[in-house]
């Protein structure tokens, strides 16, 4: 259960074509992350799968059966919304039980499932409170609880962590990953945060303007970005992309090198530059190098103890096997 196939799915709002024909296969039990800059159609794609938007053309199959025209409730999917969308006038218990009540489930079974979800999500102490009395993280867990009691064939998450503060976000990220491990249900997760995508996904789908730029495991995308967009989007800090003379030397229109794949020296190297800002993170230091003649700014990772200061001259040497070459259309040269 939990296999979703999109076949030539398109979506237009009036004259605006948001999703051009798109094919995607999501396998059972996978944690799939849709990632892309805002406005790339990732939320729309999720809503198409959920059935909250109608597809303009194409077909959506869930577990092999055509679900294109099924109403959302009949698709067997559960969704966690960005705003959590809890029902403010109902207690946590009633919120979680709502989908079961709508399905006219036996009250004893409802009770059992709600208690189980509350236990899994550490909500037992708050079960009779209302959403207004809960913190952001607790509300998030109630929203997840409301999704898991239905035992859906797949979970859909629409940027669920974007309203939480940084430390809570890291915690919830772990909790969702663990939930995926214990339930082994298909999960589709939308985010614009590539760190969330890298840490949680089995499979990342990188979207730009409704197009799928690349699909693959986090490390596949990191090691072998198919084009300059994916190269620039995956990885933190972003990959350095150079065009012009430096690229021509390697027989490419654009070359890319990650900040962590350059050797840094104060004496000798391929490229020469001047240190601008140094961001000290403790374990690492990210240096912004200017006046290299390659790009306005080059980011490079140095060890935490590398001692340079603003205005120093440094030399950079790319690790040859980690250099990415792209042709004039931005596509990777093998």
């Amino acid at each position, binding site marked *: 259960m939990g296999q979703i196939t999109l076949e030539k799915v398109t979506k237009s709002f009036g004259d605006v074509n948001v999703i051009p024909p798109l094919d995607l296969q999501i396998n059972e039990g996978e944690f799939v992350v849709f990632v892309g800059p805002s406005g790339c159609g990732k939320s729309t794609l999720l809503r198409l799968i959920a059935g*909250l938007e109608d597809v303009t053309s194409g077909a959506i199959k869930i577990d092999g059966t055509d679900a294109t025209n099924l109403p959302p*409730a009949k698709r067997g999917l559960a969704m966690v*919304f*960005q705003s959590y969308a809890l*029902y*403010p*006038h109902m207690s946590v218990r009633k919120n979680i039980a709502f*989908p079961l009540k709508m399905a006219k489930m036996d009250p004893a079974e409802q009770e059992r499932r709600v208690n189980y979800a509350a236990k899994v999500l550490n909500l037992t102490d708050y079960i009779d409170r209302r959403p207004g009395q809960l913190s952001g993280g607790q509300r998030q867990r109630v929203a997840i609880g409301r999704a898991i009691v239905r035992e859906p064939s797949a979970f859909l998450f629409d940027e669920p962590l974007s309203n939480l503060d940084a430390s809570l976000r890291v915690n919830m990220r772990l909790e969702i990953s663990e939930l995926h491990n214990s339930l082994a249900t298909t999960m589709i997760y939308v985010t614009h945060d590539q760190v969330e995508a890298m840490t949680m996904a089995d499979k990342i789908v990188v979207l730009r303007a409704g197009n799928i730029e690349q699909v693959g495991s986090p490390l596949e995308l990191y090691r072998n970005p198919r084009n300059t967009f994916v190269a620039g989007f995956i990885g933190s800090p972003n990959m350095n992309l150079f065009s012009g003379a430096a690229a021509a030397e390697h027989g490419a229109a654009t070359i890319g090198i990650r900040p962590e794949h350059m050797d840094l020296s104060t004496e000798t190297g391929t490229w020469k530059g001047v240190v601008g800002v140094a961001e000290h993170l403790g374990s690492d230091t990210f240096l912004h190098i200017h006046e290299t003649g390659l790009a306005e700014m080059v980011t490079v990772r140095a060890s935490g103890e590398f001692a340079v200061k603003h205005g120093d001259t440094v030399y950079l040497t790319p690790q040859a096997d980690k250099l990415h070459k792209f042709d004039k259309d931005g596509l990777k040269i093998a």
Partner: protein
Amino acid sequence: MATKASRSAARIMIAPAVILLLGWMLVPLIMTLWFSFRTYLPLRGGDQGWTGFDNYVRFVSSSSFWPSIMTTLTIVVSVLVITVVLGILLAMLLDQPMWGQGVVRILVIAPFFVMPTVSALVWKNMFMDPTNGLFAHLWRFFGADPISWMSDAAMPSIIMIVSWQWLPFATLILLTAIQSLDGEQLEASEMDGAPLLKRFYYIILPHLGRAITIVILIQTIFLLAVFAEILVTTGGAFGTRTLSYLIFQRVLESQNIGLGSAGGVYAIILANIVAIFLMRIVGKNLDN
């Protein structure tokens, strides 16, 4: 800055408003109480001194007292039910995106700006007149005998007129409430398997709870004192004599200020009983 000087300055500055409002309320109240214990017949000897509770006993023992209470309550409850139910439906309708939304909303609110006397006269003469009214023409078009609204269906007529006036108010308050409903909640309930009616019952209606409470409380205050609509239509005949109309008749038609004042005190008591009941029933919606 809450210094001693600024606090006393603040007190001095709000004093005129407080004194004016207190005077506005207290002077008529005390005068009503005062007159209710006196025999005061302006055209038959003027103020003739204390009578104790005679006015109160006479007002209650009159055969028109209990019917007038029932009429008042019937009008209040009927208008409340009609305006709240239609108000919710209209608000949901107006919340839908449509062409000319701004104009439609202004048109819907318009009846509220028409003075009660005027609207009641328009209804009486243009719609409900048994020979020339629009309803009479409509009835005849279908071959039915026109209803003589003001005599045969006096109460429904009054209720219809008053509801028409108050529907815009209810719609307006409920529309603003409905607009504040989070769309994701509706989508979440849709995914949770709630069909349209259940979404309405479990999501929209509870969300509107507070707005409905406010509509009910505010309207009740004004509906208990409905007067102009009755004066210009039935003149209190055909079972449309409300408590406030009865008081008006005692004071102006019977020229008995003492008796009317006693009625006024009963009206205060009735309003308070209604208010306590309402707060008991719907007041908890205003908490949190």
